[in-house]
């Protein structure tokens, strides 16, 4: 899902007054999920829309230079279940956002063939306090690891091997 209108740049609820609370349920969801098949710059993406809340917790995951077995890695291939993947992340992100009282969530995840060092995942959670931002960001990353239908295959030369599990915390 590539959300074209961005609800990520909502003004801080703290900065609003009066009847804003009553209208909140009518607003667009403050969750934005994007699956990218091409490289993206996490910093440029962040610069444009991460400045309205007092606290921002960010996680960036990159391709390791070696395989799970410790050997040289040429590339990491990422595939997903289109539709189900985006919807699961979206639902889980909104659930965690409400659970932790966070303000806005952005998730960018790569698919396709990635080289070592390339960004796989970017998670940004904005909130009015650091605790909700950090906790929501950490838990959302676990959701991406364990509950979203993505699969990684490590390539060395013409040998590809699907990973059977995630790296431990």
């Amino acid at each position: 899902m590539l959300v074209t209108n961005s609800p990520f740049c909502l003004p801080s609820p703290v900065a609003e007054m009066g009847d804003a609370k009553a209208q909140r349920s009518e607003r667009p969801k403050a969750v934005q999920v994007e699956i990218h098949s091409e490289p993206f710059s996490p910093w440029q993406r962040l610069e444009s829309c991460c400045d309205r809340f007092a606290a921002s917790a960010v996680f960036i995951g990159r391709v390791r230079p070696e395989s799970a077995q410790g050997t040289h890695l040429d590339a990491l291939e990422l595939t997903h279940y289109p539709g189900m993947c985006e919807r699961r992340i979206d639902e889980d992100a909104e659930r965690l956002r409400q659970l932790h009282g966070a303000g806005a969530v952005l998730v960018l995840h790569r698919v396709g063939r990635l080289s070592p060092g390339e960004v796989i995942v970017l998670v940004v959670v904005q909130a009015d306090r650091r605790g909700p931002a950090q906790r929501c960001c950490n838990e959302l990353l676990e959701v991406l690891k364990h509950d979203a239908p993505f699969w990684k295959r490590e390539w060395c030369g013409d040998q590809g091997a699907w990973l059977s599990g995630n790296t431990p915390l």
Partner: protein
Amino acid sequence: MEARLQAVMPHDDSGSVRVLLFAALRDQAGWEEKRMPLAGDGPQTALQLWMALELGALPAAVRVAVNQQLVDPDQQLHAGDELAFLPPFTGG
């Protein structure tokens, strides 16, 4: 009316499900998508349909989704369902 239209459509899915495989399962089977008929004689579960694919026993770690929702392998299928077999997720 709807039933009559379906009856004359070339790709009638009124008695079949769409089956999707991912990652290692896809490589193992040699295909990623297949339309499978539902058995005519009574209810059929996701697990029963897997057995009809003749890919061996369903690995314990593989999860089943029907219409993009995770379900129990004993979930009963209906005509037109999208059935997916999902190896352990390794994203993030």
